């Protein structure tokens, strides 16, 4: 018995000490660089559509910053305010317990100055209070749930892109603006919180604005891959519009299986986050599908020096690939952080700012990105709002790729709730305070 206990304690302390001794870099070097961690899916179902594009975008951006002068002003300074940035990736797979462990390790063991990350809403929810408790800077980049800044206040946690409410509100506004009459609406959404929230936002907005009746609601399992029966059910009920928040491999499989069966003919299909499958599917993506890109990015991006840089850098490293929502949302996040660090530095007499100073600088900040201006308008200046665009897919013979036409862009204040009201209530009350040109 005794030896057992000792041995175990020995093992534990050996492991611990080994860990303890290994990582810390010399203090001097630590001061010079800004250590940035990116948490994103590098494995599993999220890797292809959002995880890897997000990480690629961050990596290239940081590389460009470190070389300096590659991006247009105001992003032409080296690194973050002259400080080189060291960036590394952490896999988001493995569940919330693992993510909380890894976040603690990242701040406490690996001394990251800031973390940008999380695609999964449950990981965002779990990670945010940890960063807050540790008083470390965390910027959420992709997850959709509005709950994070609506449920509590944060000092150290930000989301440099909008939450998911506008993705669906914008589609409904689009239908309204284009005066499309719809008798019934059906939904096919993945059966987990993200899919359920999206459908709820969509159908409630639709009922408020157009008074459309609800048709069938289908709830395939996340990662199901087989949609034959769902497609039959949709054909059977024959709704005027089908809404979906499927994404990644699921969305591609759905489209590949639905298109040959004529699901996209004679009715509207609205894919709230559809831009990221345009490039991989190419010609197999049907025409006439209403899509959004969770912001004015991807095929909706307006010509600007910043956007030109993003497109050029993406195509240089991934020939033939056009940047999509994950690239844009990551770019937004990194640019926001850079702006905040540099603003805080200027306020601090060009000395290295503290985490608190960076957070103060980021709070309520506005900055330019390839997807337009981002404003930290909600959650006491911690939650961004941004404009959104909706359009319809069309094959462009000349460019030999799918483009979007009939685009409508909605101002950030038009499709996002104002400060102080929960998204749910905002929709339920009929969008009070919305400012649409």
């Amino acid at each position, binding site marked *: *018995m*005794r*030896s*057992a*206990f000792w*041995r*175990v*304690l020995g*093992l*534990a*302390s050996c*492991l*611990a000490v080994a*860990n*303890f001794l290994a*990582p810390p870099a010399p203090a001097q070097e630590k001061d010079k660089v800004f250590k940035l961690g990116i948490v994103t899916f*590098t*494995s599993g179902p999220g890797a292809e559509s959002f995880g890897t594009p997000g990480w690629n975008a961050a990596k290239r951006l940081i590389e460009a910053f470190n070389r300096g002068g590659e991006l247009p002003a105001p992003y032409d300074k080296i690194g973050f305010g002259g400080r080189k940035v060291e960036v*590394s*990736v*952490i*896999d988001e*797979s*493995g*569940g*919330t*317990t*693992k993510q*909380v*462990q*890894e976040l*603690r*390790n990242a*701040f*406490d*063991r*690996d001394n990251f100055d800031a973390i940008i990350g999380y695609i999964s*809403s*449950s990981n965002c*929810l*779990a990670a*945010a*209070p*940890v960063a807050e*408790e*540790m*008083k470390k800077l965390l910027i959420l980049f992709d997850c959709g*749930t509005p*709950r994070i800044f609506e*449920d*509590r206040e944060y000092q150290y946690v930000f989301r440099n892109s909008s939450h998911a409410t506008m993705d669906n509100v914008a589609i409904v506004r689009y239908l309204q603006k284009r005066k499309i009459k719809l008798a019934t609406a059906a939904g096919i959404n993945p*059966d*987990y*919180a*993200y899919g*359920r929230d999206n459908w709820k936002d969509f159908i409630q907005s639709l009922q408020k604005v157009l008074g459309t009746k609800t048709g069938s609601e289908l709830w395939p399992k996340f990662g199901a891959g087989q949609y034959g029966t769902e497609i039959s059910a949709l054909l059977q009920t024959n709704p005027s519009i089908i809404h979906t928040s499927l994404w990644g491999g699921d969305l591609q499989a759905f489209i590949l299986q639905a298109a040959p069966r004529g699901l996209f003919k004679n009715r509207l299909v609205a894919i709230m986050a559809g831009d990221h499958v345009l490039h991989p599917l190419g010609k197999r993506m049907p025409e006439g599908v209403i899509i959004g890109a969770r912001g004015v990015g991807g095929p909706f991006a307006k010509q600007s020096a910043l956007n030109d840089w993003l497109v050029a850098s993406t195509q240089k490293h991934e020939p033939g690939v056009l940047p999509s929502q994950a690239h844009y949302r990551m770019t937004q996040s990194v640019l926001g952080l850079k702006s905040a660090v540099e603003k805080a530095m200027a306020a601090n007499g060009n000395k290295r700012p503290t985490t608190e100073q960076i957070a103060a600088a980021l709070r309520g900040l506005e900055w330019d990105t390839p997807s337009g201006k981002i404003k930290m308008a909600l959650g006491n200046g911690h939650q961004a709002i941004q404009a959104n665009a909706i359009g319809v897919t069309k094959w462009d013979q000349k460019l030999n790729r799918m483009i979007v036409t009939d685009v409508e862009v909605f101002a950030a204040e038009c499709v996002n709730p104002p400060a102080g009201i929960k998204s749910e209530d905002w929709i339920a009350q009929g969008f009070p305070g919305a400012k649409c040109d």
Partner: protein
Amino acid sequence: MSSRYAIPLLAALTLVILVVLGKLLPAWCVFLLVTAFAKGLAALGLVLIIRSGLLSFGQGLFYCAGGYGAGLFMLWGGVHDAALLVLAGGLVALVLGAVIAPLLAGYRSIFFATLTLALSMLAHGALTKADFLGGSDGLNLRPPSFIGFQPANSTESVYALYVFACILVVVFSLACRVHFNSVRGLLSLAVRDNEIRVEYLGSSVRRVISENFTAAAFLGGIGGALNAIAVAHIDPELAFWTTSGEFVFVAILSGYLSVAAVFASSIALEFIRSFSSQYFPNAWQMSLGIFMLASILFLPNGIGGLLQRRKKRMKGNKPA
């Protein structure tokens, strides 16, 4: 020293050492130990079932029940004391276990394993659908207090959590150790070895299995509640089959002979995972898989078997 006091004394000593060790280690490491302890407690429960010759692939169900039990007790009941929360989580799992146990006690081997798996996947599905519990996104918990003590900062709260976890681990290890040595403990092994003889001695195999399963559920709930408090978040993933798979791995790696080995395995798993995430971000699952294969291959009786063998050899070498 009488052998009667040897084990409690050793437990007290271990607690002191662990508590001191926690002061010396960095906070991230201490936190990793807390989560390892939480998983270890659930795996310890699984060991109880394994000792009666069965293996549950649904221990995550109780880990999840404990987590939600503690979490909802905090969010709805307004209770913030860690001890009460963990107790609540344990009791919720205990009740659930006690209800399910008699239904499962007639199943053996792979059927027992798959049925427990199916039940925990059903719970996973149900929680994913439960919008009022946050669905798949789950719920955030608030920071706990520890018998009136409210930690002021991150380091303090991690350490308080760690001391609390150490107490749980030592208390339940002690309870299990004493139980393993008891007649009832032997009866579990007897069921595993030969159910027919147990029945022909006038004892009920179903009862042994039901009790062990319920006790395992309780420990799973305690572990789950501890994890919930530590991570401050609960979601249906806790009942997913991969969570249960981890407990199975820890339990198999530790073997059924030693309580300490359960926590050693759990700690080893967490550190290996953490290291491989750090050094091989693109192949951490592979490193974990290789570690699992190697440990199954080279430690056929688990870490506990290793300890036991050493002990035996030492005993054998003693001069007569």
